[in-house]
């Protein structure tokens, strides 16, 4: 395996009195789609937020492209090329879709400064956003907001995309749109670390999988091997793929 793009070693995170991450070891290889699975409260979201520097790791090392980023602030981490799509999508509801895009494109002062080819590609992935260009983002449906959240993260090339439960609360047809969009992203060799509870969604996208429990990584491997092993699914996640189809 090539040198990991992102590497967490023995990462602990405390939030107030709670000890959430208890020694997370995780590697995200470049150009691959890594899925972070686990039950509620396993520490998946905390892992992403710790990588982004929103919550500081109390112990351990977080390395990106071989350099320690655990001591950096969130803006510095983002400027190194890591984009984050939070669970609540982080849409600026009072701003228009266009203004959300301009904010995400750090080098752009206006939409005319954005790369038109890149913008056209984003609109190919998420056609619905074209029409709502000048609409306040708060008026979008849940699925459209999720599309905007992901589109915003890729409006400029990023080295790593952290996505937190993109299928949460979405209708099945919208989930399939998201799957298609992420497949397109995969073709561009974008490195993605995606947190998910919907195993069927995750199975369609993941190259590699890591399973969390109790603030630790308890399993890593290929998605194909986990998808093909119902006993392992049952043991790690308390489910089988058959029951999700």
């Amino acid at each position, binding site marked *: 395996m090539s040198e990991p793009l992102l590497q967490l070693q023995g990462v602990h995170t405390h939030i107030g009195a709670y000890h959430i991450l208890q020694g997370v070891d995780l590697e995200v290889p470049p150009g691959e789609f890594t899925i972070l699975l686990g039950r509620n409260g396993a520490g998946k979201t905390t892992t992403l937020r710790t990588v*982004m520097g*929103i919550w500081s790791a109390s112990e351990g090392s977080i390395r990106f492209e071989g350099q320690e980023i655990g001591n950096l*602030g*969130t*803006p510095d981490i*983002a*400027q190194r090329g890591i*984009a*984050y799509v*939070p669970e*609540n999508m*982080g849409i*600026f*509801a*009072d*701003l228009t879709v*266009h*203004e959300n895009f*301009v*904010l*995400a494109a*750090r080098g752009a*002062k*206006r*939409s*005319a400064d954005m790369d038109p080819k890149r*913008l*056209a590609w984003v*609109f190919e992935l998420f*056609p*619905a956003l*074209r*029409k*709502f*260009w*000048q*609409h*306040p983002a*708060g*008026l*979008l449906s849940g699925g459209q907001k999720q599309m905007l959240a992901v589109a*915003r993260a890729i409006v400029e090339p990023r080295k790593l995309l952290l996505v937190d439960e993109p299928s949460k609360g979405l209708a099945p047809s919208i989930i399939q749109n998201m799957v298609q969009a992420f497949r397109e992203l995969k073709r561009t060799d974008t490195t993605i670390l995606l947190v998910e509870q919907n195993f069927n969604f995750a199975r369609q996208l993941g190259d590699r999988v890591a399973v969390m429990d109790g603030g630790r990584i308890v399993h890593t491997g290929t998605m194909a091997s986990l998808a093909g092993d119902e006993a392992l699914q049952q043991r790690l996640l308390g489910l089988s793929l058959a029951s999700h189809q």
Partner: protein
Amino acid sequence: MNPSPPAASPLDELPRVRRDLLPLALIPVIALLGVPLVGSFSTWVTLTFAGLAMGMIIFIIASGLTLVFGLMDVLNFGHGVFITLGAFLATAILGPLAGWTTSERILLNLGAVLVAMVAAMILVGLVGFLFERAIIRPVYGQPLKQIMITMGGMIVGEELIKVVWGPQAIPLLLPAGFRGSILMGEAAVEKYRLVAVVIGLIVFAAMFWVLSRTKVGLLIRAGVQDREMVECLGYRIKRLFIGVFVAGSALAGLGGVLWGLFQQSVVPQMGGAITVLLFIVIIIGGMGSVGGCFIGSLLVGLVANYAGFLAPKVALFSNILLMVIVLLWRPEGLFSVGKQ
């Protein structure tokens, strides 16, 4: 910004953009309600201009306060000291410029006031920068401590002003060209109030332009809603906050100059006295909303002047009554900011 919308897709249903213009209608509604209550049309015109001028000055002072709260949830009870400092600086600057202020030439009068306003903005902005570093920064995210320490900061600031200028009231006379009234039909409108309205409109237009047409403005509006996400996009919100705090302090200094000229005398307690009014305005407008702050300021100015004329005893609590009515109608203020 000059967005070029991409070609529309016919596949998606277009939701209607509903612009919330109802709060805007409150200003003409309140003003028109005043016509039959006041009785005399010329008196109504005088009171309305006085109310609008007062509202504009309050807006200039309060706009920074609402943005500071919106961006970082900082309740700065020390904002009043910036107003006082601006007003006292005006006395210090306009004194030596007596030749200009007493001149019959309006350009010299304007020049003197302009010098006082610019100098007050720069110096109060600098004090605001130090205030943020020394007093606000250590208590980010601790609301109770913020209230205590910013109130303490205001008390200390007031005492320092007394040390420099003394505890007594200092007259701040209007330049010769701003004194007196102009007649609009039978209504007399004080010249200075017209000047205050014009300056208020210029500040509002500049602020509106920055907030709606520049990337910094976009960042401020986004930061008011969700500062964590702004940081996740790679922007340093704390630097932005310092900038907004300094700009807000400078505007309070400018407001202090205008308020001092409005009152024609300055006392060290003047900032503290107006602070309650500022909080009423930003609560009415919706905490963090500049547009709401503008409308709230004008409403407060109009209601204070009409009530002061019709029933002086009611004027003492008229603005609190206005706030209660607005909050019963819209509990988050006229324009709620969609905070995450």
